């Protein structure tokens, strides 16, 4: 399990079956989203990588991370992989639904619900 903490955002990843789960804690904006992008890229390696981003500890999210999420979805799919979101409520849910990204990136209530086939 790796951990990054730049005071504003904490990023932790762990493996659950075929998925790498990246848990984000803190506010996601133009200042903090580059740290998320960096970690997402580092996890999107190997064959058919499956990466899930857990947003349950994100009290605020604006549009700054949306382009990056969509770009990572595309990049993962090109490698035969998948991107999913977990624990989407509150502020992230609002932003994802207004922009329609919730129809593009699959979301699960909890990491335990991720498909393991």
């Amino acid at each position, binding site marked *: 399990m790796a951990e990054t903490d730049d005071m*504003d955002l904490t990023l932790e990843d762990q493996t659950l079956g075929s998925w790498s789960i990246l848990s984000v804690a803190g*506010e996601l*904006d*133009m*200042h903090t989203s580059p740290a998320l992008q960096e970690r997402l890229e580092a996890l999107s390696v190997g064959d058919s990588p499956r990466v899930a981003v857990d947003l349950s500890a994100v009290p*605020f999210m*604006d*549009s*700054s991370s*949306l*382009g990056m999420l*969509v*770009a990572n979805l595309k990049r993962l799919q090109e490698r035969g992989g998948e991107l999913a979101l977990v624990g989407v409520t509150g*502020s992230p849910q*609002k*932003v994802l639904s*207004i*922009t329609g*990204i919730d129809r593009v990136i699959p979301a699960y209530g909890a990491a335990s619900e991720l498909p393991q086939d």
Partner: protein
Amino acid sequence: MSLAEATSGERLSLEIPPDPAHIVTARSFASGVARSLGLDDETADLLRLALSEVCSEAIEQRRGGRIVVDVSADTPLARVTVVATGVRRDQTGNHSIEATFRRSLIEALAPGATFDEQQERLTVSFTLSAA
């Protein structure tokens, strides 16, 4: 003081450098304004998000200068104006994918928001009503 008591036109202002590190201050300012104007939680969330988006837009497009946020008690709740000065970064008019999402969010959060873009000055105005 509830909004009913707020003197119409009473103005709160914030000025920050155009740096992503200071967008958090725009959101905290929004939290304080929401409390002093007696906004409900949902409208406070809306104001925080709208200011975060508008400041990001200003920072992405300009270099140097300042960002000034003005909130005035007004009907139905408040009038918000963000003025960013600084040299325009992108002369071609190309918009990043972030900018596209940002515009659609701002338009959803603050219908009727106006964007006045000039060489050294971007002015975004919108009226805040209950979320």
